[in-house]
């Protein structure tokens, strides 16, 4: 029964190493956090990797949105070609800082996120791909709060498959 004795120091070393790594990682995160918040113009890679709309919104903004009639989402009732669906979002809210558009049942829900600096109007139009009939969700960030609107778009031919 020498193995537990032999194994003990190794395990202890491992634990210590682990603790060191955690400490380092912790510090790294601490110093990174404010830098990220300050820059705020980094590409939100994680948010684009999320599968569901709720996770993507959480990853992007860290909070949830409330439905608002001050968010206007323009999308067709029926999109014949899912590869090119014209979608525009505008808002009558004040102090809009960003607008994001999500497609619920795409492989990754978040499609596009726009930063709206002061002086730029809270209105954007673009064209997105949709895999199938599903909800399109518009998120508007205004005065630090999130507001949303959604609309179902029927897709005749999906734009994600081959």
């Amino acid at each position, binding site marked *: 029964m020498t193995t537990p004795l032999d194994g003990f120091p190794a395990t202890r070393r491992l634990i210590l190493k682990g603790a060191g790594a955690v400490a380092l990682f912790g510090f790294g995160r601490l110093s990174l956090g404010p830098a990220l918040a300050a820059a705020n113009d980094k*590409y*939100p890679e994680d948010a684009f990797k999320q599968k569901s709309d709720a996770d993507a919104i959480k990853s992007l903004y860290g909070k949830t949105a409330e439905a608002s009639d001050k968010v206007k989402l323009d999308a067709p009732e029926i999109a014949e070609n899912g590869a090119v669906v014209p979608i525009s979002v505008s808002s009558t809210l004040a102090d809009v800082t960003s607008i994001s558009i999500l497609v619920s049942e795409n492989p990754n829900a*978040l499609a*596009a996120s*726009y930063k709206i600096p002061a002086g*730029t*109007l809270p209105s954007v*139009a673009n064209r997105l*791909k*949709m895999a199938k009939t599903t909800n399109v969700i518009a998120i508007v960030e205004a005065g630090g709060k999130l507001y949303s609107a959604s609309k179902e778009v029927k897709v005749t031919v999906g734009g994600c498959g081959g």
Partner: protein
Amino acid sequence: MASTIRVRATSSGETTEVQALIQHPMDSGYVKDAKGDLIPPHFIQELTFEYDGKSVFVADWGPAVSKDPYVKFSFRGGKKGDDLKISWVDNKGASDTATAKIQ
């Protein structure tokens, strides 16, 4: 070399409306080619519009943006004859830049 970026920026006095059309495959990574192999993702991640040294619009895009993407927005200010600078960078690190005169 022809630019991948086509922009029309029109000033109406108070605001400037910008429409941009960019040539890019915007491959999502979910589509197969004729041989049945997946085409790897290749899409624009960031598109920035700058006027007077400041960014007036920044787009973060995922692969769900359509091929040859189009975007439209407006900003307050912007004088006829002034420059609007547009640049994009994709997930493979490729990029392009163009400057358009506000009309």
